[in-house]
């Protein structure tokens, strides 16, 4: 379990991470989502002791990272798959890791197998790796010590669609077995499918957190929106008004501030034939853009 409390990191006058507090629970995948430069990587570097915090603290399983005697055995870290000596082979990088954690050498082959790097690929120098292969190697390195906690910064970056699916299954399985996973991304789609819990960060501050449902509900202040159309639009409008709802024309039908069930019941009571009935709430992407709009560009925030 990762517990971030009041974390702040400033660089001169610039505040990269601003009073950030969140928790990553065991058995769950937590997605750390935000545009580039939002403070995700800085937060993760503080977690594993590479960047000293200005204020606040992070504990992993109740310990400060630097107090873990052999941290690689408990926390698997991948911050940048490209941060490897280009002249080393993949196998050598894992061997250095295994030796640094006092693991048997057999662990290297196990991990190569886990991430589907062949013997031939493992023997190549990292200089000749594709970004996807580097990510796989980085995942292998993070998993070497059989840790309880994974901290992964943009792990899906550079993976092909099959690779992304593989990573998703791997992380889900890992969490199902009781592991804690924190992964960051600036791409919503990557996180949405795998994360049980999401933390949205923009300009160093957490703008929203929770699971997908509660985030969406929160974005519309708990108000549901339904898109509905019928064979006879006039009859539908009358039916909705009769049930105390207020339809506004949208496309072929109406937009109603109610749940699909409420709208469906209204149509049923007045025997209106519906041709379309769906949840009209904005997707997570709209929410993400809305919440972080002021960090993208000022005009977008003003327009919204």
């Amino acid at each position, binding site marked *: 379990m990762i517990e971030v409390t009041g974390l702040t990191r400033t660089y001169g006058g610039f505040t990269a991470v601003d009073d950030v507090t969140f928790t990553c629970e065991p*058995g769950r995948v937590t997605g750390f989502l935000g545009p580039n430069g939002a403070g995700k990587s800085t937060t993760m570097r503080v977690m594993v002791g590479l960047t*000293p915090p200005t204020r606040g603290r992070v504990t992993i*399983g109740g310990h400060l990272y630097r107090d873990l005697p052999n941290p690689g055995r408990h926390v698997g870290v991948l911050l940048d798959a490209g941060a490897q000596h*280009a002249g080393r082979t993949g196998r050598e990088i894992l061997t250095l890791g295994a030796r*640094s954690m006092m693991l048997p050498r057999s662990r290297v082959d196990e991990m190569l197998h886990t991430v589907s790097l062949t013997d031939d690929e493992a023997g190549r120098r990292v200089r000749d790796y594709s970004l996807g292969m580097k990510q796989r190697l980085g995942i292998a390195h993070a998993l070497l010590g059989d840790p309880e906690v994974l901290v992964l910064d943009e792990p899906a970056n550079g993976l092909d669609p099959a690779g992304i699916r593989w990573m998703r299954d791997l992380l889900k399985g890992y969490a199902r077995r009781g592991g804690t996973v924190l992964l960051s991304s600036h791409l919503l789609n990557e996180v949405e499918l795998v994360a049980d819990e999401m933390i949205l960060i923009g300009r160093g501050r957490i703008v929203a957190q929770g*699971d997908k449902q509660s985030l969406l509900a929160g974005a519309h202040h708990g108000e549901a929106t339904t898109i509905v159309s019928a064979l006879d639009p006039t009859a539908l409008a009358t039916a909705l008004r009769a049930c105390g709802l207020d339809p506004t024309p949208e496309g072929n039908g109406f937009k109603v501030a109610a749940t699909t069930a409420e709208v469906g019941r209204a149509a049923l009571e007045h025997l209106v034939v519906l041709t379309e009935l769906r949840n009209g709430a904005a997707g997570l992407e709209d929410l993400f853009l809305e919440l972080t709009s002021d960090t993208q560009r000022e005009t977008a925030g003003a327009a919204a």
Partner: protein
Amino acid sequence: MTTTDDHQTSAPTGAGQLPRTIDVTDDQRVPFARLVAVETRKSFDTRAGRWLTISIVGLVLVVVGVGVFAFPDDAQDYVSLLGVTGGVLGYFLPILMIMLVTSEWSQRTGLNTFTLEPRRTRVIGAKITAGLGLAVVVLALGAAIAAVGVLLSPANGGEAVWNLGYNEVQNFSLSSLIGVLVGFALAMLLRSSPVAIVVYFVYTFILPGVVAALGALVDGFDKVAPWIEFNTAQTPLFTGDYRATGEEWAQIAVTGLIWLVVPFVLGLWRLVRAEVK
């Protein structure tokens, strides 16, 4: 009609039973010897690293060969050959040492190294130990090559003079040790391979020349120089009878404080606090 939603949001997939703390009572730190072994391995597990060491030894072979076959007969004794060997190693061993530190930044491997061992002073200690070990092995190899050179010297009219005394061994070892430690201090301070290497060469090549020139131009500067310039202070170790007087040792200590101890402490202080990116 929000029961399904509520059910989904509150289902913690069994999170309640999972341990929220990590038990480290049975954990042991990675032994220091293992860290040293890993750091030593890092010097050789890339082509560039292997060839740097091989090139240094190769250069010693060349220089000793030139010494045996081109030096005048009376300069083919062991101390002379060891002197040129020491000269070569004095310039290049510190580069080995610098790379041990700076590659963690230039290749960004520090992300791995310092997450696996967050106590950075242990990593630094392991690097110094590995670097000194490497330096000692290369120095021994250099001494052996020089010895072979002495054996070969009769082929060119020499007399195979084994004139090595305690002072010579002590002085060669001391100056090599100083050289690699200055390199290490600069590497910690600057954390960039090219910058650290250039600064090291300025310190070891250019600075003594500038000091000598100043000594010639400015009255009395030659009296001050040994107290402020490390290379100048070490000169008595290699000239005359290879013996330093009490005052000369004092000069080595004072300049050592300026050029070795202060940069080393400052470098270590910076490195322990630096952000690893």
